[in-house]
């Protein structure tokens, strides 16, 4: 396993201040803090070359976990091993094997073209000039970057900057990629290009990727396996479709009838989601599906019938939105 986390926990101490003037005075005279448990007893293992999606609502503990995995913060409890190293020691050999891309936080020098930052990175990682030039060419081709590399970073669009950030983060060919919202704020085309690039990079180098994203399209396109963290605890570790059946165990039955039928007619045939003249949506438990479908076909004049899982975007979106399971 290239990444192993066992009983990983992180507790932060945060200041607790009441709003208003009185709260400010109280906070000044007697500072109160409380412990916030960001990650609790999280365990998982990731094999070399895997692409794993890391899902969770805002504040669920995703970024804290990523920071512990790449050695930026020390765990409060538990053990973690990445590429054979304890990340928090930040051994140079470990740092050469990993990379972290955090949304729009950037490592590129703002006032200079990306090529200048890439030159610094090549020197810092000890990549010979010839090798660095070849990698820059290859990665730039994959990312569809050209003249942008010689333009000051501040003059680049968000999408161009993100792609240049990816190039800088991957120049040393890391074995493990931690990507925190790599497509945040990008338009649909740019998102799709970054996704395609990550899939190609994984295929080409066999790198392990742990990816967080609020865009389900990133996860469904790239990650056969997902980890779902909720309130600091690991809720799911496995294929995405199994997560869907955990979040919404019912199947969706969509009917189109020849004539309108009153709502009462569907009593005992699952849960009626919507009824608009001849279009009907029902949610049915999987073990009753065949019986219910047989009864529907028997009782009504059915023009069309479709059975599906509830859309994954909606399920996860609702989960993020509500912040609860």
């Amino acid at each position: 396993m290239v990444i192993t986390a066992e009983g990983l926990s992180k507790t932060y101490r945060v200041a607790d201040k009441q709003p208003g003037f009185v709260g400010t005075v109280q906070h000044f005279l007697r500072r109160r803090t409380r412990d916030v448990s960001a990650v609790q007893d999280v365990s998982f293992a990731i094999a070399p070359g895997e692409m794993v999606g890391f899902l969770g609502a805002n504040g669920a503990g995703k970024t804290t976990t990523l920071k512990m995995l790449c050695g930026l913060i020390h765990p409060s409890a538990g053990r973690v091993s990445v590429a054979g190293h304890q990340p928090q020691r930040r051994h140079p050999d470990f740092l050469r094997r990993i990379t972290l891309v955090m949304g729009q936080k950037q490592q590129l020098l703002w006032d200079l073209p990306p090529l200048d930052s890439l030159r610094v990175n090549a020197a810092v990682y000890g990549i010979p000039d010839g090798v660095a030039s070849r990698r820059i060419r290859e990665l730039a081709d994959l990312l569809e970057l050209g003249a942008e590399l010689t333009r000051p970073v501040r003059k680049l669009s968000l999408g161009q900057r993100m792609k240049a950030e990816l190039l800088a983060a991957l120049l040393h060919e890391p074995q493990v990629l931690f990507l925190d919202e790599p497509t945040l704020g990008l338009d649909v085309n740019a998102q799709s290009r970054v996704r395609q690039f990550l899939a190609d990079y994984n295929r080409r180098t066999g790198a392990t990727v742990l990816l967080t994203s609020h865009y389900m399209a990133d996860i469904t396109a790239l990650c056969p396996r997902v980890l779902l963290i909720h309130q600091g605890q690991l809720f799911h570790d496995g294929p995405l479709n199994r997560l869907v059946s955990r979040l919404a165990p019912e199947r969706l039955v969509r009917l189109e009838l020849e004539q309108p039928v009153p709502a009462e007619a569907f009593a005992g045939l699952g849960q009626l989601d919507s009824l608009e003249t001849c279009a009907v949506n029902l949610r049915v438990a999987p073990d009753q599906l065949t019986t219910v479908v047989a009864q529907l076909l028997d009782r009504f004049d059915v023009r069309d019938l479709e059975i599906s899982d509830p859309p994954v975007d909606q399920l996860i979106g609702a989960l993020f939105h509500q912040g609860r399971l």
Partner: protein
Amino acid sequence: MRVFGLNGRIIRALLGSQYATMLEYRAEIALWALSGLLPFIMLSLWSGSAARADLGLDGAALDRYFLSAFLVRQFSVVWVVYAFEEDALLGRLSPYLLQPLHPLWRYVAAHLGEQLTRLPFAVAIAAAFFVIQPQAFWIPSIGDVLLAWAATWMAFAIAFLLQSLIAALCFWSEKASALERLLFIPFLFLSGLLAPLTAFPPATRHAVQWTPFPYLIDFPARLLAGESVNLAAGFGAQLAWVLLLLPVVLWLWRAGVRRYSAMGA
């Protein structure tokens, strides 16, 4: 091979990129250079003062001292605490912590890049000074220049380490730069920027020798101005301060990184 994490290629790449960055801000740096005119203001004050005789520097010597103080200050200005604080608060420190190079080297390179950008402005201001005060013109000996250059570098090293020590406190307090402002007051009075240390009573002068401040301006400025100084004592004290501060900074940094919660990252 790397020494303290550096090799020739890294130094070239860091200095080249930081110098290029600073050139983008050359107008701002010119203004910063101009804002360092305090020694010239103090010169005009002392020149018209009856207390001038107590300074032990007569005629052109006083002019040269304050010009030298200006030049030493130009090449030993340190602002690492402000840059570091901003980087830590905005989460820009995180990518630097994940590279196999101590982040402080980036700040050192940024300072050196800035000094190189300041150079022409400092030379222009010195030239203007000689036009206004032609009696102060002198050409220091090569030996004095080299010694003053070395002493200015040591002054920069002490100032950088002092501020890095405060910067490392950002890991505990998010506004550690306030402490730097507290340090600026003794620096202003005890470094020789407002007056040569000979202006102080002997007891104060003796006590001040045990602080790092006189070695930041007074000692290198006197060297450049061609005044007689105790070389061994001056360089010895500078080296002692570097050797004292360096392990403290590194220890505090390591302890701070353990505490770091990647704020804003």
